[in-house]
């Protein structure tokens, strides 16, 4: 395996890891505020469809982005309504959100485009195009640094850079701002927030809305950056992998980057080498695909450090006795 191949695989890992990263950070906001979210998959799918559809019709990726975020947000609000206002079961709500997206997107796609549940191919400005960072072509031929900069770091769409920028931003918001303090508090012990005179409901809705935006970006990237258009069920379990990454990262932003990029790398490797021959055994592609899930189970089992979710997670806040 030469250096060029490694850079290519890493580059592919970044592309594949980006939607996971955005979705993972999306889940982080919600779950840190005490709202479990197994509906990331549905929100991403909804965003993928609406961004793809609107981009196809208007020819603008940016309008697509807006529509994608809107689609994701509508499901986020359904989840908020169920979990916060009606104090329902957050897991059941998440399951419902996933199915809603899975059915609704195909239904509308078929009705609008009659292409068997997909949107037309996107091209030109309907897609987010790669950005060449300054000096990328100049340093191209410098050994090591050249390919790393021009192929790995440069040449991604704006959403990839946004995703990476979201990591320090999330960290900063969570640990350095008033909002972050309250958000973490409401996920640990909502009574502490309530008795301090801060609205639990408003905080949690805000968190769920941020989740909607970030999951919207993740889905938009799938349809308008990674691929060229929406295809039925195109999230293909990425929402669950993001959830797995969130647990893997123990609900912290910087490890979330590591976890999602690791999972992106696994996908990139298995795309390139379906069967990996380790001499003694051959790892089949199916195993590579299952690795994120297996790793998450191992983490959940507490064999490599215990993953402790936010303490108030999953429980609706009831003030009355």
């Amino acid at each position, binding site marked *: 395996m030469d250096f060029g191949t490694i850079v290519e695989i890493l580059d592919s890992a970044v592309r594949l890891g980006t939607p996971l990263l955005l979705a993972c950070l999306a889940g982080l906001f919600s779950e840190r505020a005490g709202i479990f979210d197994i509906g990331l998959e549905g929100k991403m799918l909804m965003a993928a469809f609406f961004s793809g559809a609107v981009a196809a019709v208007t020819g603008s990726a940016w309008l697509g982005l807006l529509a994608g975020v809107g689609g994701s947000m509508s499901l986020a609000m359904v989840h908020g309504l169920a979990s916060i206002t009606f104090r329902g079961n957050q897991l059941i709500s998440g399951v419902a959100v996933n199915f809603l997206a899975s059915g609704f997107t195909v239904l509308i796609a078929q009705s609008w485009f009659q292409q068997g549940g997909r949107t037309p191919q996107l091209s030109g400005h309907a897609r987010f195009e790669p950005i060449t960072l300054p000096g990328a072509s100049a340093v191209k031929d410098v050994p090591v640094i050249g390919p790393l900069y021009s192929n790995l770091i440069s040449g991604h769409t704006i959403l990839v850079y946004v995703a990476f920028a979201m990591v320090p931003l999330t960290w900063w918001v969570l640990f350095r701002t008033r909002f972050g*303090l*309250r958000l973490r508090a409401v996920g640990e012990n909502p009574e502490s927030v*309530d008795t*301090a005179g801060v609205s639990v409901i408003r905080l949690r809705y805000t968190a769920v809305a941020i989740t909607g935006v970030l999951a919207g970006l993740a889905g938009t990237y799938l349809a308008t950056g990674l691929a060229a258009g929406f295809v039925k069920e195109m999230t293909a379990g990425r929402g669950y992998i993001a959830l797995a990454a969130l647990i893997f990262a123990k609900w912290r932003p910087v490890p979330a980057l590591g976890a999602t990029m690791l999972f992106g790398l696994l996908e990139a490797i298995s795309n390139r080498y379906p069967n990996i021959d380790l001499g003694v055994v051959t790892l089949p592609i199916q195993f590579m695909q299952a690795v994120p899930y297996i790793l998450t189970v191992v983490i959940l089992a507490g064999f490599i450090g215990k993953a402790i979710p936010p303490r108030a997670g999953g429980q609706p806040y009831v003030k009355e006795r």
Partner: protein
Amino acid sequence: MVDVQANEAGRQATAALATQAPAIELKGISKAFGTVQANKDISIRVMPGTIHGIIGENGAGKSTLMSILYGFYKADAGEIWIKGQRTQIPDSQAAISAGIGMVFQHFKLVQNFTVLENIILGAEDGALLRPSLAKARKELKRLAEEYELNVDPDELIEELSVGHQQRVEILKALYRQADILILDEPTGVLTPAEADHLFRILDNLRKEGKTIILITHKLREIMEITDTVSVMRRGEMTATVKTAETSPEQLAELMVGRKVLLNVTKTPAQPGKTVLEVENLRVVDEDRVERLKGINLTIRAGEILGIAGVAGNGQSELLEVLGGFAKGTGTIRINGEEIDLTGKHSDGQSRRRRGISHVPEDRHHLGLILDFAAWENMIFGYHKDAAYQKNAFIMDNAGIVKHTQEAMERFDVRPPIPTLPAKSFSGGNQQKIVLAREIERSPALLLVGQPTRGVDIGAIEFIHKRIVELRDEGAAILLVSVELDEIRSLSDRIAVMFDGQIMGERLPEETDEKELGLMMAGVVN
């Protein structure tokens, strides 16, 4: 600096106003939950710079009243006046701005936050944390010096003792400029030494002109620290008096509505052979805190051993280990036979087979399944008994319902309807269901925890009578209660527990409340 001066000026202004108007005045507050009238037409006046006690039994409506004052519940009727001004308190934010701070019985702290983060939560100065944290750190230092409120600002809450956590709650209120402080049952979770320290803090706060409302059901605390005291009973305010002009006896009578001395008619015990022997019993909890530090005790057939003590000194753990659902080390023998202490989950059932019955302290979380019907609760824990099975696979539900019906009538459970879920019975009737289940097996050893907690007076007498009857039938009984009167009137011997140890044993006729109280505080051995 400007800020501090403004605060200073404000404080003086309030102090000046205080000489004229009460810090808090409640006029005709009423609140109902469904059909239960929790507060009925309550009026009180609390003068600034005083400590006002509110005393009453569990369920008398004290906490509801304070929750209204703190904006947690909205009163159905009545007015709240703060410092001479009619004030609306729709939520906690309004209470905080009115200068009210509340220290709840169960602390409202974020366990994995530092002290400092907890202090500023909800009272941050701007969108960024750094300046708020710096300011709080300075303020905390000042408050610590002024009121003996020392806590390390960078320690995580989960690392702090209960007493220190309570200090954080008080600091939270003071940081929010509270000059009216409400404390709800603050000593329930404290060791005597921590309680003493708390009272010193409260005294300092009073000297600084703060107004304090202390909610408690402990007469001793009222007498020790308050200036005035109000007594609540069944949602009503029965009296407000100056502490100096009253006595514990008078307060107790006001609380209960009659003389408290519980009259249990019983003959002297006729103890038989030893039923329970406990040797060097130790329990270490999940946080690796030693809860029982080598308990030794014996109970013979036909006698009641009462365990007195402040809640949280190991009594619950003692019951749990004996009842077979917690781990321990040491030796426990029942009728001479040693029993397993490894905490296997089947232990609960093997204990029952050996004739140990257990009326647990907490009937809502342990003794009953509130969603289950009375008949299901009547066999709970004994559901594997052959008597309740139709054949090897199927339970005899009809037979169980019939058995329950009869048991409910014998124990005067009202209404005697076996199919009603446990949650629709009153506290007293729920307790009678548990009691019927446990007593009717004629156990060799009965463990009873807080048998009359949250139970009405009528049921208390009934329950006490049944416990004594069981003793007279030859059962050994271990009674745990935080109500000293109950211990004194029921027990044939009294053991006092403090800090996971037995401080000593006394005969009820040879001791008095004072001596027992000192032992409970860990003073006399």
